[in-house]
C-alpha cells in the first residue's frame, strides 16, 4: 500500500473553487424572513423599558418572553441568558430579535428603537474571580525556601479575533413541530443540545445540519449555540423560514475571542543556576460570562512548563468576569497565552544568569518517561532533540543568531519549543463526550462515515474518506461522508481540541478494521464508542494525572527585521518542525502548518484588539489587521513521523499545534533585533518604542 501521507486531491476542491459549495448564506427559502439583532450599547444596565417605532404587522419582536424552555444557553455553567430578562452585561449583547421580510426596514426599526437603561457600575478590572484553580507538583514551597535567587517576570497577552472570513450565520425552518437549523458551526450536537433545553423539546423535534463552513478557528465552537437558540425561539414563534447572518461588524463586536491574559511567573534558582521550581499564576479575562473560560484556563495552566520538565511546580489561575464581550474558544485554547509566557520566561532566566539560552533550555527539555506538569507520564517517545537539530540546521539559527546579536543589525531570529495535548483535557473525552461513530455499508457497497465532525477547512472530509478507503482497500469514491446532520449521524463529539483525526478518526479506523474483518456482501452497520485507555488516570479536583492521552510537539523558528526608524516588524522567513504522529495527508497538514503559524505569529506582533470601557476599538477588517499576501513570509515545514499507537496510522493532533508556538518565536526574534526583553504581545511598533525609550 502507498504511504498514507501521500497527498490526494481534496474531495471538495471543485465545489470550492467554482463557487458551488453552499455556505449558510447561500441557502434561501420562499417566504423567508430575516432576523436582525437589537444590541446593548452600554456595558452594564438594567433595562427599564424598550420603545419601538410603529411596527408593521408583519414585523415580529422576539425576546426572552418567547422562550419555551430555560432561558440559558447550555454550555457548561448556567450563566448566559439567551435573551436578557432584565440586565445587560456587555456592549453588543443581543437584547432581542426583530424579524421581518425586508432587511432594510428591520435596520431602520432597530435604529429607531430606544432602550431605556438604568445604568449600573460595570467592572473592567480583573477583580471578580469566577473560577479559581490550583495544582502543585513536587514540593514547590521547599524549593523556593532553598533558592539562592528568585527570578520573577510578568507576561501579558491581548485579545485575538478568529477573523474567519465567513461571518456567523444560521438559517432555519419550522415544519410540523420540528425546528431545523442549517449553520456555520463546529459542533452540531452542542447546538442541538442547547436547542433542546431552550425549546423544551424532545430529541426528534430539533435537527441541526452543517453547511459548508467558511473558517472557524474555535470561533464557531460555543458561540453559535447562543445565536441558534435565539433563532430557534423565533422560528417556534413565527413558524416561517428565517435567515440570520451576521454583518462583519456585529460579528466582531459580539462574538467570542481569545482571552487576554496576564501570567506572573517566578522561578526558584539554585546555587548552580538550576531551576528548582516554577510558580505561575495566570489570570484570563472571561468577559461577561464564564462560557468555556474555565476549560481554557485549565489548558493554560497545564501548559505551565511548556515543553520543559521542571521538578517542582505551583500553578494557579483565575477566570475574571468583566463587563466586556465574552471570550471563548480559539485555536490553542489557553495554551498560546501560557506557552508565550513560559518559553520567554526560560529564555529570560538564562539571559539573567548569563547562560546561553539554547543550552539552558536543552537541559530542561522534556523526555520520554518524565512526569508531566500534572504528574502524569510522557509515555511515548519524544523526538524533540532530533526536531530541534533539524530546525537549527534548516534555519541556520546559530550562525544567524551570532550575526543578528550584534548591535544595529536590527534583525532577529527566535525559536520556540512547544507541545500540545491532543483531545479534551482530563477525563473530558470519557465523562463529557463519550464519542460514538458509525460506519454504514449500503446495499450498493458504498461505505458511509457517520460522524458529527465538521470540515471547516482543515480537510477532514478528505482525510476521513482517505482513511476509510485505505483501511478497507476500496476506492475513495466508494466512501461517502456528507456534511453532518444530527438526524443521521451519532454524536462523535465536537470538532475541537485537535481531536478529530486522533480520537474520532481512531474510532472510525477501529470500526473500519472490524468491518473489513467481518465483511459480507450487502448492508452492514458497525459502531464504535470511545473508551479511555485504562492507564490514563486524571483527578479533576486536584488536577493531577494524565491531562491528555497524547501530545504533539513542535519547533518554530522565525526571522524578523525591525525598521530602525518606524519600529515596524517584518517577518522574513519561518521554519517549522512537527511531530504530529503521522500525517494522514501531507499537503493538508502543510496547509494547517502554514495557516497556523501565520495566525500564531500575527498574534505575537500584528493583530491588535483592545477595548475602552467595554467598547471594542476594532470592529472590522479596516482596523483589525490580519496578515495579507504582502505579509506572507516564506515558510518551510518538516514533518517527522513518530506514530502514536492509538491514533489511526499513528496520527495525533495537528490543528492547534501549528499556532501555539508562533507568538513566542516571533517575540524572541524581536527581542534579538531590538536588544530588549519583551513581556507583552502583540509586539507592536508602539510597544517597541516604549522599550527603546528605557535605554
Amino acid at each position, binding site marked *: 500500500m502507498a504511504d498514507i501521507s501521500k497527498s490526494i486531491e481534496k474531495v471538495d476542491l471543485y465545489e470550492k*473553487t467554482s463557487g458551488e459549495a453552499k455556505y449558510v448564506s447561500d441557502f434561501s427559502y420562499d417566504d423567508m424572513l430575516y432576523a436582525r439583532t437589537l444590541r446593548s450599547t452600554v456595558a452594564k444596565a438594567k433595562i427599564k423599558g424598550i420603545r419601538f417605532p410603529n411596527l408593521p404587522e408583519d414585523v415580529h419582536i422576539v425576546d426572552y418572553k418567547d422562550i419555551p424552555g430555560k432561558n440559558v444557553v447550555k454550555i457548561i455553567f448556567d450563566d448566559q441568558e439567551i435573551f436578557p430578562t432584565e440586565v445587560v452585561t456587555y456592549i453588543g449583547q443581543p437584547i432581542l430579535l426583530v424579524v421581518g421580510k425586508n432587511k432594510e426596514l428591520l435596520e431602520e426599526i432597530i435604529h429607531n428603537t430606544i432602550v431605556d437603561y438604568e445604568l449600573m457600575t460595570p467592572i473592567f478590572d480583573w477583580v471578580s474571580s469566577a473560577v479559581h484553580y490550583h495544582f502543585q507538583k513536587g514540593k514547590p514551597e521547599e524549593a523556593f525556601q532553598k533558592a539562592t535567587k528568585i527570578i520573577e517576570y510578568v507576561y501579558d497577552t491581548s485579545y485575538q479575533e478568529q477573523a474567519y472570513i465567513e461571518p456567523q450565520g444560521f438559517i432555519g425552518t419550522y415544519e410540523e413541530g420540528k425546528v431545523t437549523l442549517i449553520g456555520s458551526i463546529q459542533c452540531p450536537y452542542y447546538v442541538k443540545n442547547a436547542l433542546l433545553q431552550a425549546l423544551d423539546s424532545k430529541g426528534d423535534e430539533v435537527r441541526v445540519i452543517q453547511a459548508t463552513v467558511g473558517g472557524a478557528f474555535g470561533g464557531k465552537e460555543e458561540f453559535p449555540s447562543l445565536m441558534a437558540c435565539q433563532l430557534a425561539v423565533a422560528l417556534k414563534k413565527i413558524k416561517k423560514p428565517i435567515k440570520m447572518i451576521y454583518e462583519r461588524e456585529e460579528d466582531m463586536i459580539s462574538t467570542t475571542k481569545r482571552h487576554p491574559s496576564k501570567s506572573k511567573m517566578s522561578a526558584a534558582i539554585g546555587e548552580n543556576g538550576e531551576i528548582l521550581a516554577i510558580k505561575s499564576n495566570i489570570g484570563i479575562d472571561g468577559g461577561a460570562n464564564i462560557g468555556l473560560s474555565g476549560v481554557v484556563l485549565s489548558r493554560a495552566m497545564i501548559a505551565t512548563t511548556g515543553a520543559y520538565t521542571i521538578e517542582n511546580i505551583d500553578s494557579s489561575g483565575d477566570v475574571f468576569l468583566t463587563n466586556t464581550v465574552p471570550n471563548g474558544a480559539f485555536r490553542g485554547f489557553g495554551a498560546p497565552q501560557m506557552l508565550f509566557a513560559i518559553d520567554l520566561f526560560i529564555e529570560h532566566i538564562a539571559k539573567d544568569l548569563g547562560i546561553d539560552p539554547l543550552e539552558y533550555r536543552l537541559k530542561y527539555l522534556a523526555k520520554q518517561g518524565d512526569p508531566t506538569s500534572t504528574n502524569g507520564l510522557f509515555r511515548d517517545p519524544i523526538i524533540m532533540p532530533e526536531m530541534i537539530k533539524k530546525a537549527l540546521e534548516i534555519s541556520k539559527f546559530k550562525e544567524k543568531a551570532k550575526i543578528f546579536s550584534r548591535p544595529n543589525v536590527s534583525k532577529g531570529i527566535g525559536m520556540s519549543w512547544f507541545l500540545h495535548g491532543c483531545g479534551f483535557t482530563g477525563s473530558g473525552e470519557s465523562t463529557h463526550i463519550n464519542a460514538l461513530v458509525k460506519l454504514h455499508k449500503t446495499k450498493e457497497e458504498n461505505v458511509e462515515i457517520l460522524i458529527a465532525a465538521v470540515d471547516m477547512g*482543515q480537510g477532514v472530509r478528505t482525510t476521513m474518506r482517505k482513511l476509510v478507503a485505505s483501511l478497507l482497500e476500496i476506492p475513495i469514491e466508494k466512501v461517502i461522508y456528507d456534511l453532518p446532520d444530527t438526524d443521521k449521524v451519532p454524536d462523535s463529539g465536537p470538532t475541537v481540541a485537535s481531536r478529530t483525526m486522533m480520537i474520532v478518526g481512531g474510532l472510525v479506523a477501529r470500526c473500519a478494521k472490524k468491518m473489513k474483518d467481518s465483511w459480507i456482501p450487502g448492508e452492514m452497520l458497525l459502531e464504535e464508542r470511545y473508551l479511555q485507555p485504562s492507564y490514563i488516570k486524571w483527578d479533576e479536583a486536584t488536577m493531577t494525572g494524565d491531562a491528555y492521552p497524547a501530545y504533539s510537539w513542535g519547533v518554530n523558528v522565525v526571522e524578523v527585521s525591525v525598521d530602525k526608524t518606524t519600529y515596524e516588524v517584518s517577518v522574513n522567513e519561518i521554519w517549522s518542525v512537527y511531530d504530529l504522529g503521522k500525517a494522514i495527508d501531507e499537503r493538508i497538514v502543510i496547509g494547517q502548518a502554514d495557516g497556523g503559524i501565520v495566525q500564531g505569529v500575527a498574534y505575537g506582533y500584528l493583530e491588535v484588539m483592545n477595548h475602552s470601557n467595554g467598547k471594542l476599538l476594532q470592529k472590522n477588517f479596516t482596523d483589525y489587521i490580519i496578515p495579507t499576501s504582502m505579509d506572507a513570509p516564506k515558510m518551510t515545514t518538516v514533518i517527522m513521523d513518530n506514530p502514536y499507537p492509538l491514533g489511526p496510522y499513528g496520527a495525533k493532533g495537528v490543528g492547534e499545534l501549528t499556532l501555539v508556538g508562533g507568538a513566542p518565536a516571533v517575540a524572541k526574534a524581536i527581542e534579538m533585533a531590538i536588544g530588549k526583553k519583551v513581556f507583552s504581545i502583540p509586539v507592536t511598533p508602539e510597544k517597541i518604542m516604549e522599550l527603546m525609550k528605557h535605554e
Partner: protein
Amino acid sequence: MSKITFILNGKTVSVEGNPGVRLLDVLRNEFKLTGIKEGCGEGECGACAVLLDHKIVNSCSVVLANVDGHEITTIEGLKETSRYQVIRDSFGHAGAVQCGFCTPGMVIATESLLYDNPTPTEEDIKIGMSGNLCRCTGYQSIIEAVKKASEDGDGLW
C-alpha cells in the same frame, strides 16, 4: 427606479430597480450567483470579487448604476473557461483551498492578475492578491498556485 443593462457572464441582462443598490446583492439575490461571497461588506476582504471589464472589483463596493453598459464576469462565468481549469488545478496542486470561502475571490483575483500580466514575479503576485484576505492558508500556497497557473497556462493569458 431605472433600467440598468450590462453583460453578465457573456449575456446581456437588464435590471429594473434602485440604481444605488450594491452589485453584490443584485448578483446574489436577483441572479442567484452565490459563488460570490460576502465577507465584510466594506471592500476589505475580496470574497465578493468579480471582474468589471476584466478588472477585479469588490462587488460590495460597486453600485448597480456603475455597471450600466459594462461587462461583469463572476466565478460562475469564469468557471466555464479553460483558464479557470488551469487555476483550479494549480490551486489544488498547491493546497491553496481550505475553508473555501475566499477561494472564488482568489480565483477571480488570479484571473485578473494573469490577464494583465501573464508572467508575474513573486512580488507582483503578492501585490496582485493583496486585496483578498485568507485566514486559513497563510498565503504561501496561494502564491505558489498563482505561479503555477502562470506557468501551466502559458499562452492562455
